[in-house]
């Protein structure tokens, strides 16, 4: 019954990959010695890593509070989930309007007499640290990782945390030694998906990124559409570089599933 679906996915995906490999032939030497490519890979890895870690650090405590319950939990959970359906591009715009040098925070800083003009506000978008991009991803992925964690917490079939508490573990140590290891497989899978996405997505760094160095996906697409058609094999090679990192992540994901 899985046949047709598997054939469709494998065909589209496989053809794209194989065609990419064939057409990238000959460009690898240039790509792997290009400072632009290495800088792009570095910035993409930085974006993926920082976004994943920050989103996790916010999402897991949030999920713990949601599990414990409080007044207004239902409304809070709904608002918490809203971003799941909001496209990345819209979030990137929101971040732009908030954090740009003429954005809402800059305007508030002006009225608080912290700055006298837009240029004095620190560059948080189009910046070398990719702060704007990372903020967009954190904004988008906190709800996802929060729900993954919450589902894992609610899926724990019994009260191991309570057992740890009566044996003398503090709340923090019960979480660290007992709850976290139990939800780790689910959380790690969620983190892998988030990392893969934030590492390889195009539109957010395209909108909020600086001109050099560009994130790897942006670099690949710009090379592909270069007036010089000779840049196309290089673009393919960069795309495959992204695929390579992703496949390593899939292997990691499947290994987590087996345990």
């Amino acid at each position, binding site marked *: 019954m899985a046949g047709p679906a598997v054939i469709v996915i494998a065909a589209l995906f496989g053809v794209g990959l194989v065609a990419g490999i064939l057409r990238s032939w000959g460009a690898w030497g240039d790509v792997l010695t290009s400072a632009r490519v290495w800088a792009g890979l570095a910035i993409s890895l930085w974006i993926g890593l920082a976004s994943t870690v920050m989103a996790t650090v*916010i999402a897991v405590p949030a999920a713990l509070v949601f599990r414990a319950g409080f007044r207004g939990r239902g409304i809070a959970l709904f608002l918490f989930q809203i971003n799941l*359906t909001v496209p990345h591009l819209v979030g990137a715009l929101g971040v732009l309007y908030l954090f740009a040098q003429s954005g*809402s925070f800059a305007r508030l800083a002006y009225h608080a007499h912290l700055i006298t003009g837009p240029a004095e506000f620190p560059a948080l978008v189009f910046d070398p640290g990719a702060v704007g991009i990372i903020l967009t991803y954190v904004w988008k992925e906190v709800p996802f990782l929060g729900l993954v964690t919450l589902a894992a917490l609610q899926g724990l079939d019994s009260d191991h945390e309570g057992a740890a508490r009566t044996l003398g573990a503090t709340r923090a140590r019960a979480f660290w030694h007992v709850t976290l290891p139990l939800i780790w497989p689910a959380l790690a899978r969620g983190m892998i998906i988030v990392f893969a996405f934030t590492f390889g997505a195009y539109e957010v760094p395209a909108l909020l990124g600086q001109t050099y160095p560009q994130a790897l996906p942006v670099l690949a697409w710009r090379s592909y559409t270069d007036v010089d058609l000779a840049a196309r094999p290089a673009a393919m090679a960069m795309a495959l570089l992204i695929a390579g990192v992703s496949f390593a992540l899939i292997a990691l994901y499947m290994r987590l599933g087996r345990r």
Partner: protein
Amino acid sequence: MRRAGLLWAVVAGLILPLIPLALWSVARGWRFPDVLPPDFSMVPFHYVFGPVSGVLPALWTTVLVAGVTTLLSLLIGVPAGRALGMHQFWGRGVVEAIVLAPIVVPGIAVVLGLHGVFIGLGLTNTIAGVVLVHLIPVLPYVILVMAGVFANFDSGLEDQARSLGATGWQVMWHVTRPGVAGGVIVAGLFAFLVSTGQYILTLVIGGGRVETLPLLLFSFASAGRNDIAGAIGVIYVLPGVLILLWTARRITGRGAAWMVRP
């Protein structure tokens, strides 16, 4: 409770970026250093729904692509979800990896290679080509959601119906269908959202000829038209929020989070 207070702060932070977007969509002459727009107007929306902006045709294209993609995905994805959710079979690990791959591997990694092939097949710059390429992220999504739905469906009910004399089709219609219909609807709605959220796949295969809402939004945003981009953004966000409002109660339990990753 202090911890609940911190959580509300997080929630506020998550909502915050949507506020200037909504303000821009009704703002007029909003310049530095005004914290709030000095004047409100519906001009951005008039422009957006007017003939010049191209938003209405783009909206139509977006809905068409997403609708067809969703139907195709359900058609071949639901049986696959059933197989993964209910049965152990030889080669299951390989199937899982194939289904998982498009979720983890970014679109740009395969779409550049596909572009060349699609040119040869005459599929570039066409709706059909865009639908086909949208299947890459949407289909695995439907399969995974439906695998979760079927995993929660007790196959003993089907056996019971068979032993009471129902034929295969009768079982499917009277027992299986009511059991998973809610899940199929949710999967379809979110599959629709996944498709409407695609940017780079549409850009590469559609070649700018198939213009969907995100492409239009991107161009207005990079052109610095904050008011128009704000108005398009509001239109773009609304269906998802409505769907979430409608499905929020249905999405609970184990695996729920995977349902909502458009």
